[in-house]
C-alpha cells in the first residue's frame, strides 16, 4: 500500500525529520508542560467520558447485539440472526406504530413550527409581551403527564370542547379519545399545544437578532409587511427554523408520554401506538428483549434517515449569510 500511493511515501521522510521547526530556547520545558497539560485534558473530560462509555455507548452496542438474539432476561440467550427484524417487519403492530409515529411527526412539525413563526412575528411587534410569553411557555414547563391528563378531561365526549364543537357545527359531539380516527389527531393537538411555546421564544430571539438597519433599508426600498416577512425575516430566520425542525422531528419520533397517558395504552385499537410505545410494550409488557431491541434499531435508522433527508433538503430552503467566507 505504501509503495503504491504517492502520498504515503512522503510520510516516512517526514517522520525521520525532527518533530517540527519549533521555538528556540525552553523547548524541552515547554514540551514537558505540554505533556502534563495533556494529562489534565483527560482528567477534565474523564467523568463525562466514563459516563458516555458506561451509560450510552455500552447500552447502545448491547442494543445492537440484543437485536439479533432471543432473550427474556431469565432463560438462556440464543442467537437468532435477522429473525427479529424479519418478524418485526411483518408484525402488523410495528408497521402500525411506524405509520402512526410518522403521521404524528408530519402533522405536528410543520403546523407547530408554522404557528410558532407566525406568533413570534406577531409578538415581535408588541411592546409588552411578557404575559403572552408566559402563557405560551406554561405548557413547556408542565410535565407531559400532567398535560396529557388535563387534555384527557378536555377531550371527554361530554366535555367542554366536544360540546362546543357539537353546538357550533350542529354535529354529534366528537369522541376524541374513543374514536380511532380522531385519537391520533388528539395526540397531535396536545403535542403542538405543549411544544409551541419553546419554538415561539426561540424564533422570537432569532427575530430580535436581525439588525434593524436591514429591515429599515428594505422598508425604504418600499417593501411592505408581507415582502419584509418573505424576503428578509424568513431567509434570515431559516437556519434557526431548520435547526428547530430537526429537533422537533427527532422528538416527535420519540412520542411516548402523551400516548401512554392521554390515550391510555395506545388508544382504541392501537390507533395511537407509536414506536417507543411498541418498544416499551415488547420490552416491559412481554419481556421480549430481542424483538424490542430490533424495534429500537429500527427507530434509530428511521431517525438517521429522516435527519439526513432534512439535511439534504436544507440547501434549497435554508439561507446562510456569507460570514463564513
Amino acid at each position, binding site marked *: 500500500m505504501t509503495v503504491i500511493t504517492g502520498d504515503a511515501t512522503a510520510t516516512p521522510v517526514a517522520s525521520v525529520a525532527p518533530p517540527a521547526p519549533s521555538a528556540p530556547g525552553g523547548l524541552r520545558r515547554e514540551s514537558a508542560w505540554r505533556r502534563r497539560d495533556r494529562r489534565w485534558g483527560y482528567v477534565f473530560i474523564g*467523568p463525562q467520558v466514563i*459516563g458516555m462509555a458506561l451509560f450510552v455507548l455500552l447500552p447502545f452496542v448491547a442494543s445492537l447485539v440484543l437485536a439479533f438474539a432471543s432473550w427474556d432476561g431469565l432463560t438462556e440467550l440464543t442467537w437468532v440472526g435477522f429473525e427479529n427484524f424479519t418478524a418485526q417487519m411483518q408484525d402488523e403492530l410495528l408497521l402500525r406504530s411506524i405509520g402512526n409515529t410518522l403521521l404524528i411527526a408530519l402533522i405536528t412539525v410543520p403546523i407547530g413550527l408554522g404557528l410558532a413563526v407566525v406568533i413570534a412575528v406577531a409578538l415581535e411587534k408588541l411592546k409588552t409581551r411578557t404575559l403572552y410569553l408566559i402563557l405560551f411557555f406554561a405548557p413547556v414547563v408542565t410535565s407531559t403527564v400532567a398535560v396529557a391528563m388535563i387534555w384527557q378531561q378536555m377531550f371527554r365526549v361530554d366535555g367542554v370542547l366536544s360540546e362546543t364543537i357539537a353546538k357550533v357545527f350542529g354535529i354529534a359531539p366528537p369522541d376524541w379519545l374513543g374514536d380511532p380516527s380522531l385519537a391520533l389527531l388528539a395526540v397531535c393537538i396536545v403535542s403542538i399545544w405543549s411544544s409551541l411555546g419553546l*419554538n415561539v421564544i426561540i424564533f422570537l430571539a432569532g427575530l430580535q437578532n436581525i439588525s434593524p438597519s436591514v429591515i429599515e433599508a428594505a422598508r425604504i426600498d418600499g417593501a411592505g409587511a408581507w415582502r419584509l416577512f418573505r424576503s428578509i425575516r424568513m431567509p434570515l430566520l431559516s437556519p434557526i427554523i431548520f435547526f428547530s425542525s430537526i429537533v422537533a422531528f427527532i422528538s416527535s419520533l420519540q412520542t411516548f408520554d402523551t400516548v401512554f397517558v392521554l390515550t391510555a395504552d395506545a388508544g382504541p385499537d392501537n390507533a395511537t401506538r407509536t414506536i417507543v410505545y411498541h418498544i416499551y410494550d415488547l420490552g416491559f409488557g412481554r419481556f421480549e428483549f430481542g424483538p424490542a431491541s430490533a424495534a429500537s434499531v429500527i427507530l434509530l435508522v428511521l431517525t438517521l434517515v429522516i435527519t439526513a433527508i432534512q439535511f439534504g433538503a436544507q440547501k434549497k430552503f435554508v439561507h446562510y449569510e456569507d460570514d463564513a467566507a
Partner: protein
Amino acid sequence: MTAADIETTLVGRPDLERPSSPRAGVARRRAGSTALHVGLVVAGIAMVFPFAWMLITSFKTLPQLLQDPRSFWPAPWTIDNYVEAWNAVPFGQAYLNSIYICVLAVAGTLLTASMAGYAFARIRFRGSRVIFIVFLATQMIPKQVTLIPFYLLMAQFGWVDSHLSLIVPAMLVNPFAVFLMRQFVLSLPKELEEAALVDGAGRWRTFWSIILPNLKPGLGALSIIVALDVWNSFLFPLVLLNSPDLFTVPLLLSSFRGQFGSINYGLVMAASALATIPMLIAFVIGQRRILNSMAASGLGGR
C-alpha cells in the same frame, strides 16, 4: 400606544413611500394591527384554557360531575378533592424525591459538563477532536434506543427501584451540556486564563477560580435546562422505579390516574393541579431567566 403606533414612531417612513393614498395605508395598518391583537388573544386563550379548566373542574363535586357534566362553574365549590388527592398518595414524598434528584443531577452535570467543555475548548490533547465528535454524534441516538440494555445494566448494578439509576447517569453523561459549556468557554477571552497559567496556577486552579466564576450565566442557563429535563422525564422513571415511595411527581400523577380511573375526574384534576401549580408559580417567578435560557439553548448556544 398600539403596535401600529410604535412601528410608525420607530420607523416613521411608510406614508412617505406611498403618497398616493396615505389614508388607505393607515386604515389598512389599523386593520392589520387589530387582526394581530385578536389573533394573539385567541391563541392566548387557547393556551390558558386547559389550565383554567383543570382548576374549575378540580373544585366540582362528584355528584355534579355525574349529574350535570355540561355545567361550567362548580356548584357548590369544594376543596375536598384536594384534601383527598393529597391524602390518597404520597404527594409530599414525591415532591421531595423530585427535588433532591433534580438538585443532585443538576449539580453533577454543571461540574462534569463544564470540566469537559473547558477541556474541549482550551486544552490540547490527543484525540480531543475525535472524542468531541463522538459526543456530538451520540446526540443523534434517541435515548429510547438504549432503554432496554440500560435497564438491564441498572439491574446488574442493583439500581432498579433506586434513585441512583436516575441520578448517577444524569450526573455523568450529557453530551448537549458538554457542547453548550464548550460554546460558553469559547466565548470567554483567552487572556483571562493565560495570565493565571503563566503565573503558575495549575489547570485545576485556573478552571476552578478563573473559568467557573466567569461561566456563571452559562451555568445558570444550563441548570434550568437540565432541571426541566430531569423534573419532567417520565419513561425512564416509569421503567426503573416500582415503589410508590420512590416515585417522582409525574410518575405519581400517572399512577394516580391508574388508581382512580376516569369517574371522579374532579379528583384527578385536583391531583394534576397539585403536580403543576407549584411548577407554574416557580416559572412565573423566574420567567425572565428561564425564557432566556431556553432561547439560548434552542439557538445552540449562539
